[in-house]
């Protein structure tokens, strides 16, 4: 494929602008956070074209933004952020993605690498059996339709009330694990049927659960507020979303939006950007159904965190409390939310679309939990399985220029096919084991698609958002055990 030939104006080392003159119809400029070295692969993938396309959407304010982990997505790029004025703007399911509220949850422990290493295989086996992956199988939770409807509205709270985890987990979950405005009547029967058996499952693809060791602490003061005290400490990272339920909600509403586009006379450069005015029936219905899927995902991660604690307790013969298994934070990275932001000096209510982007609110913001009021909201950025993950915090700068958003992960550079051609699943397992990482996966061949070389190095991604000032890195951890669907 030829490289994208448009103009990228350098603002500084980490900011590149696509001027509105690039394409007639752009309402605002595009802004890509990236290092100079990343630009080649970004141009190669044609992703700036998608950033420019998002700038066409009615009501878009500020910039059509892209984070350094940007890669090609449906309609919106993955790593894309856009804010639409609630009064005149649109909401687009493509700006959220199919896996609504795909996100990450991080747990701390009192355990050290020395204590866990000898038991990591046993631990991985237990976690693998205790946490259903859901590929063609069903979860451990048997939901009636009535319970499913409650789960959609209550989110993680539904799970905590049924004994999966603690009240204090909710306090350190974005939105308290329950997005307001969820209306189960806006969700199709099909979506409900698809969601019921999959509640409490990890899923496949890039979803995983990882046992990690803290390798480096960049800001010990902030880290200690999170309960991260020293290198060698064990953490657990859970990455999953709303499973088939979110996909069905997205599919159902894309169909509605397709019709809304002609109904409201919206001109789009790409069919996958289908959208409707936020204030329209179609727009409100999508947001109400999307909230249901977001809540489902929070309940999902809540259950999985509970079973993770169970497995650790079993293997180490201690209670989760004795093991200090507290939740650090839980963030969504595929979501649309109505928030207040300052654009061109005036306060505006905007519908912020974050698709493969994380909220990164600063210290003192009202939506940041009490515990993090002085540090800023924790931002969890998983890398690929062979490398590392980062923990960062939100900043005032993010609030000023990226609708309080930052990157979400490493970002693919190779297609699944290309990743697989180079390697075999079994080789990936051996290679990781030789580097001290035990992997257990439902499908070993699919593992090759997730090999390290398929991703950008997350350290490069974090470096950009840290230097650009839209988040501040706190710690880095590496995996020693991984389970995948």
């Amino acid at each position, binding site marked *: 494929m030829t490289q994208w030939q448009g103009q990228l104006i350098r603002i500084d080392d980490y900011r590149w602008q696509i001027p509105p003159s690039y394409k007639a119809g752009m309402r605002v400029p595009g802004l890509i956070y990236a290092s100079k070295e990343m630009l080649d692969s970004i141009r190669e*993938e044609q992703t700036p074209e998608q950033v420019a396309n998002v700038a066409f959407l009615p009501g878009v304010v500020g910039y059509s933004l892209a984070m350094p982990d940007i890669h090609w997505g449906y*309609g919106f790029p993955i790593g894309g952020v856009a804010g639409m004025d609630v009064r005149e703007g649109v909401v687009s399911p493509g700006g959220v993605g*199919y896996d609504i509220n795909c996100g990450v949850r991080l747990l701390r422990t009192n355990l050290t690498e020395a204590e866990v290493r000898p038991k990591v295989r046993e631990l991985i086996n237990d976690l693998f059996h205790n946490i259903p992956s859901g590929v*063609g199988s069903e979860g451990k939770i048997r939901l009636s339709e009535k319970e499913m409807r409650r789960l959609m509205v209550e989110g993680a709270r539904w799970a905590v009330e049924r004994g999966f985890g603690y009240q204090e987990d909710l306090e350190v979950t974005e939105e308290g694990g329950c997005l307001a405005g969820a209306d189960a009547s806006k969700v199709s029967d099909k979506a409900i049927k698809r969601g019921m058996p999959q509640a409490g499952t990890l899923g496949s693809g890039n979803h995983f659960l990882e046992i990690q060791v803290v390798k480096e602490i960049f800001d010990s003061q902030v880290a200690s507020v999170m309960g991260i005290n020293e290198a060698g400490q064990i953490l657990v990272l859970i990455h999953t979303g709303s499973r088939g339920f979110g996909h069905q909600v997205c599919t159902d509403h894309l169909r509605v939006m397709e019709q809304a586009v002609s109904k409201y006379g919206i001109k789009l450069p790409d069919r*996958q950007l289908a959208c409707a005015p936020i204030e329209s029936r179609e727009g409100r219905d999508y947001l109400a159904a999307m909230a249901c899927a977001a809540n489902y995902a929070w309940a999902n991660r809540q259950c999985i965190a509970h079973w993770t604690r169970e497995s650790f307790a079993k293997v180490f013969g201690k209670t989760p409390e004795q093991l200090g298994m507290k939740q650090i934070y839980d963030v969504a990275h595929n979501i649309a939310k109505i928030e207040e932001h300052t654009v061109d000096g005036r306060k505006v209510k905007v519908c912020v679309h974050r698709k493969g982007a994380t909220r990164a609110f600063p210290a003192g913001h009202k939506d940041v939990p009490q515990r993090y009021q002085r540090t800023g909201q924790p931002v969890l950025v998983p890398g690929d399985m062979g490398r590392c993950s980062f923990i960062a915090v939100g900043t005032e700068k993010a609030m000023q220029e990226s609708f309080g958003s930052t990157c979400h992960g490493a970002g693919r550079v190779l297609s699944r096919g290309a990743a697989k051609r180079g390697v075999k699943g079994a080789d990936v397992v051996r290679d990781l084991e030789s580097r001290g990482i035990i992997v257990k996966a439902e499908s070993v061949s699919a593992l090759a698609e997730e090999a390290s070389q398929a991703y950008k190095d997350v350290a490069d991604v974090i470096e950009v958002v840290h230097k650009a000032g839209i988040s501040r890195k706190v710690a880095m951890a590496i995996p020693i055990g991984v389970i995948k669907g």
Partner: protein
Amino acid sequence: MQKNLLEWRLARYFCIMVTATNMTKGFQILDHTADIGVTAYGRSIEELFCNAALALFSLVTDLETVEERAEVSLEVKSQDVDGLLVEWLNELIYSFDVNHMLFKRFDIESLIHNEVNELKATCHGEKFDPLRHKITREIKAATYHMLKLKKNRAGYQVQVIFDI
């Protein structure tokens, strides 16, 4: 209607032009950075829809291991023919996700693609059995992304990207 018939006859006539690989397999797997796609071929639009469905299930499991033990009737509608194909594939994905059905053969009973776009089909296969079937990957949705349904002298061709 007559035009369609003529096109159909022409398509039949030129089917031999399609390369042997495409015709024997009926589809090819495509590369896409974040997800996975297929190009399906068909001498007729019905065959195209069958091959696209076959491509989908070949991504999910090894079709050699699937037997024809059950059949399911499906019906989908859409605004246009591209939409009909996406709906059809999404219906099959749903059938696997909810009822755990793996299909390997499809009889298209009727396919109208004019002002109304409607498809009725019977799908043959069996329920997923963890002892005999291995799920390669979960396909979660068929997308409109880079969707291209083309007609050429040899017949029809379509590219579909799946979200996984």
